[in-house]
C-alpha cells in the first residue's frame, strides 16, 4: 500500500470514528418537540449520574430507572421548568451525588480546592528542590569535585 493510500485510509477511519462517537447513544434519545428543548434535554441527561450504574450518565444508561428519570426530566421540560429547577429537583431527591459536576458549596469545597492546594504545594516543593540543586551545582563547581554530589 502506498503512503497516500495509507493516509486516506487513516483519515477515513478517523472521520468514521468521529461521526460514530457523536451519534453513539446506548439509548435512542427521546424526541422533543423543538430543537431548543432537544438540546437542553440532551445536555441535562448527560449531566446526571445513573444511580444504579454510577459511572454512566442518564443519557448512556440502559437501565429502567434511568429511563424513568429521563421521562421525569422530559416531563419537567415540557411543563416549562428551567434547567436549574430540574437540577434542584433531582438534587432534592438524590443528593449532589446525582450531579456529575458537583456545585461549589461548603460540603464540596474540599473537592474543588484540594487540586489547587496540591498544585501550590507541588510548585513550592519543586522550587525548593531546584534551588537546592542549583546551590549544589554551584558548590560542586567551586570544589571542582564531581564525586561530592
Amino acid at each position, binding site marked *: 500500500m502506498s503512503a497516500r493510500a495509507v493516509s486516506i485510509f487513516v483519515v477515513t477511519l478517523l472521520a468514521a470514528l468521529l461521526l460514530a462517537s457523536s451519534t453513539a447513544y446506548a439509548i435512542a434519545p427521546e424526541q422533543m418537540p423543538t430543537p431548543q428543548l432537544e438540546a437542553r434535554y440532551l445536555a441535562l441527561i448527560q449531566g446526571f449520574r445513573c444511580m444504579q450504574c454510577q459511572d454512566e450518565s442518564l443519557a448512556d444508561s440502559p437501565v429502567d*430507572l434511568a429511563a*424513568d428519570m429521563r*421521562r*421525569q426530566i422530559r416531563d419537567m421540560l415540557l411543563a416549562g421548568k428551567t434547567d436549574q429547577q430540574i437540577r434542584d429537583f433531582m438534587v432534592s431527591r*438524590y*443528593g449532589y451525588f446525582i450531579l456529575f459536576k458537583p456545585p461549589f458549596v461548603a460540603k464540596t469545597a474540599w473537592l474543588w480546592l484540594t487540586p489547587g492546594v496540591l498544585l501550590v504545594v507541588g510548585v513550592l516543593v519543586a522550587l525548593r528542590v531546584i534551588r537546592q540543586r542549583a546551590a549544589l551545582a554551584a558548590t560542586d563547581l567551586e570544589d571542582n569535585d564531581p564525586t561530592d554530589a
Partner: protein
Amino acid sequence: MKGRLRFIVPLAVFGLLVVVLAIGIRQSPDKDLIPSPLIGKPAPEFSLPSLTDPSRRVSSEDLHGHWYLFNVWGTWCVSCRAEHEMLLKIKQAGVIPLVGLDWKDDRGDALSFLKDAGNPYQTIAVDRDGSEAIMWGVYGAPETFLVNPQGIVVYKYIGPITQDAWKQQILPRLPPTQSPRGSSS
C-alpha cells in the same frame, strides 16, 4: 540533619496516606449507600391507587398523625423476597404499620405473591410507571423510610431489613411511648 529529613518527609507522607486510606476502607461498606437528602424533610405527598382495591386511593394525608414505615418493593426484586419474612415479623410486633409502595410491578404477580407469602402491609400504594419512586429518591428496592406523625422522614434504610437493622436502627428511633399494639398518635 538533611539526611534525616530526607528520610522523615517521605515517611510522614506515607503515614498520612495510610491514615487517609484506612479511613476510606473503614467507611467503604457504606460507600454503596447514598445518603438520602430527604432525611429531616417532609415525606413526598402522594395519592396513588391501592393495590388491593384499585378503586380506592392511598394518600399521604391519610397517613399523617402516625408513625409508619414506607417500604418500596416489587415481586421482581429478589432482595424484597428475602426481606419479606422480616416484614411479617414487624407486622406481628405491632409497633408500627408498614405502608408498601409496589414499584413498577405487575398487579397480578403482586397479589398472588402476597396471597402465598402473607401480607405484612397495612396498605399498599401502586407506582405503575416509577414516577413516585423518583419523588422518594429511590434507586434500588428494597428501600424503607421511617416517617414520623408530622410527616417528616426520620430515617432511610437501604436494602433488606434485617433483625439487627430493626432492633438497632428503627426501634430506637421510635418514641418509647409507642404502644406495642397501636399505631395511634
